[in-house]
């Protein structure tokens, strides 16, 4: 039995989850890779410590937002002992919705600011 899950039920997305999902857009990643990418992308402001990272990964898998990837990178780049993760369709949808939500929030904030500036 397939149960369709409403992607909106995950919103607003936890910051850590958002960064993990964002790291997996377009490429599969292992835990260390996710950690490094988040660190670089945020200029060192968001750091996913190991236990937090794997706790989040476990819950994201449980929620069906990501899954373990069967595909491995090129052998010279592959660390056989590492697990790779990728976005599921649901995860992708949730991320999109979260981005839209954030954009809407930013838009509202800008609007308010403009009103203040002119008013």
């Amino acid at each position, binding site marked *: 039995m397939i149960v369709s899950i409403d992607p909106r039920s995950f919103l607003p997305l936890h910051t850590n989850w958002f960064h993990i999902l964002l790291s997996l857009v377009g490429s599969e990643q*292992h*835990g*260390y890779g996710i*950690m490094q990418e988040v660190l670089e992308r945020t200029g*060192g402001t968001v750091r996913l*410590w*190991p*236990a*937090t*990272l*794997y*706790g989040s*990964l*476990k819950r994201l898998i449980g929620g069906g937002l990501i899954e373990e990837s069967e595909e491995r990178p090129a052998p010279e780049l592959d660390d056989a*002992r*590492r*697990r790779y993760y990728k976005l599921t369709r649901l995860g992708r949808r949730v991320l999109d919705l979260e981005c839209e939500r954030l954009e809407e929030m930013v838009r509202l904030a800008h609007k308010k600011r403009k009103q203040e500036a002119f008013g």
Partner: protein
Amino acid sequence: MKRPWNVCLSLYRRLANAYPHEFRMVYGEDLDRLGEDAVPEAWRRYGFVGLLRLLADVAVRLPVEYFGEIRQDVVYALRVLARSPGFAAVGVLSLAIGIGMCSVVLCGSNAMLGPLPGAHDPAALVTPRRHVSYPYFEHYRDQQRIAGAATAFLVSVPFAVAPSGDRNARTERFYGHLVSPEYFSTVGVTPAAGRFFSSETEKPGMAPVVVVSDRFWRTYLNSDPEAVGRPLRLNRQLATIVGIAPQGFLGMWPWNPADLFVPVTCGSSVAPELGDDALHRRDLEMFSMVLRLPHGMTIPAAEAALDAVTRALDRQLPDPDRDRDRPSRQLGLIPAGTIMFVTPEARAFVTSFNFMLWAMVLSLLCANLANLLLARGSHRRREIAVRLSLGASRARLVRQLLTESILLSLAGGLAGIVLAYWIAHAMSSLPMPSQTPLRMDLRPDFRVLAFTLAVSFATGVVFGLAPALSAVRTNIGAVLKEGAQAAPRGYRRFSLRNLFVVSQVAASLMLLLATGFMVTGYQHTTRLDPGFDTANLSLFSIDPLRDGYSAERSEALFSKLPDELSRVSGVRAVALAGGVPFSNLAASQANTVVAASTGEGDSRQVWRGVFRERIGANYFATLGVRLVGGHEFDRRDQQSELPPGTAAPAVINQTAARALFRAENPIGRRIQEEGATYTVVGVTHDVRSGFFAPRPVATVFLPLTAGWFVRSRAPRATVLVRGTAGAAALTAVRDTMASLHPDLTVFNVQTMRENLDRMNSFIQWSSAVYAVLGLFALLLACVGLGGVTAYAVVQRRKEIGIRMALGAGSGQVRRLVLREGAALIAAGSLLGFACAFAIARGASSLTAQLASVFETRAGDPLLVIGAPMLLATLALLACYLPARRATRIDPVAALREQ
């Protein structure tokens, strides 16, 4: 700087290793590796702070992961329990009944033996075993070294209470304590309003004052904020309310609650009990005394010191009579700071019997729960094997099974608490067999509830652990290959499970027999079969003394009242009596000493432990009891003044006649009681007299005269009215009383049947409680046996299949299954039988009352043979159902499953 880095890594590894098994299975290696990468990097980027944050992260997530798993376990357990509602219902119900019963038993103990509410340091309060005279009390009180504080008082003192305005207003009856001024300071109570008594404020001859209970203030005084200072009429005399007792304080022994506290200095006009110079007479030993022992003073030391005082006082005023009749003048102190006044022996009995009952119910419950869980564990071995093969750790599975049993036991515990509240509520609203209102507050208190929950939790853990461990010690391969029927490791005839069943049958039989003894014993010894027609017999009480009647008016009232009421239409006969027939509460009241002259000289037969009842003319005719010989009292016998030289008449029952005169004819013989001589004029049948008396007690009936009534300050006189069938005699009688004697309060109006029902209701209720306990034992035993037999059938499915394939008939298969059950039942019954008799013997040695109950029942064939037979029959039936299922096993299917 390699050191902190290494230490951090080692700590990190340790913490990461402590993560739940399932988490580690999936993420363990990654977590370790990431840590190895992250430690040097964190050190490089953030220094010490980085290492600390890394460690904090892994430490904080650890309980979160465990909590997540526990939550999963709980959700899974709830789902599993919901899938097998039968198992859940039996488990929760049996736990609820058992735990509910246990907490009621504990509450019962607490209700009687709990500390006195409202008192300061109640453990320091002691009371002598016997009553003392007021002058002696004053000497004891003055021994500051022995008694830090002391008070003397009279309990259950009736007062006719009326508002202060109208002197002839209708009175209401309340009970109170007549207390020495030190009462409240000794008990250690502070007033809610106004003041209490003290030796400075309470002096003889001062205007009467009264302290009222909070309950009285709320009901009778309508919570009047100006109540302190208001006058009130007590026994027609004005008394000023000076204080209100704190909420919940109903006197020294709340079992006999007091609403009014009147100082003994008020005089005999307010309290007739104080007549005859009661405060100055050394021979009137009628006061209860309570002492507060100073810190460090032990009971034996206080006893010895008080005995020295008693001896010194006795020497000052030798009294040969007193010394002859009282073998011991020792005070014998016992703890007094409990709700109910209990002797240490009674306390030992109550606590040990309740504890025994409690332990039996609890052990039965635990055995049953263990059995249920064991049998269930065996059913789930395939599921467990699958989960084990998929990588679940054994610890995790044990935890899962434990979660289920703990959930079950907690649900049972909560349901048990609800049940306990319900039982306690029903029990505390029981009508009690006494003229003095007894109140039982049996609501479970916080400690009992906490204890009950702790016990249910422990039951879940302890009795969930063994089956859980047994279930996970499964040979995975064999189970997966053979299905649920594979024999678990360690399955054998004399297994833990069989031991549980034997102990369960034993505990059930023990409980069944013990409760059976109690139920039938109670029924036998206390069934009030009065031996006369109770239909159309009504009674009510009057108290002319406290309604302000003088001795002369009382005399006139007693002589004309029966005539006045006999003329009321629908009334056939009327008689007066001192007390209510059959209301003597305990055998301890049969303390009258009667002596009969057996001829010339000094030789006389002395009989102690005789009931004494005061009755008026026409008493036996009104009750409908025939006399064996002689005649009963007539109108002339009710006169207080007898012609000089004549002895007052007495009627005795057959037991008394046998005790005092053996085979001789007692009519016309003389008996002495309390210094007075009586002539026996009649002998009655042995009508049961007394509530807990297993055998008829020797009873002497003396004439109820107004002189005696006033002199003895009896708390009431009872009027018995026999009406004609169908006539509303009681209403007419009440109307007549209101019109002829408007200033006389009529109270305790009831029919004889109501009166007997009220007394029987307590017995029926306690019997019902024990019967429910017994039935519960039976039910649990059957559930347990049925479960275990069903389990055995499942275990032996293959064997049964082969036997049937080889030609065994269904009868043979049934026998095979039943044989094992029967052996367990027999072993359990034998053990239970032996234990039940050991318990009966032990309990009998504790109290004479119980001994008489067990004595009469231990030889009862209905119980001794019936109880094991009933248990065995039901238990065999419980085994039979799975046995019949075994015969339906299809041999081909059973063998194909292999």
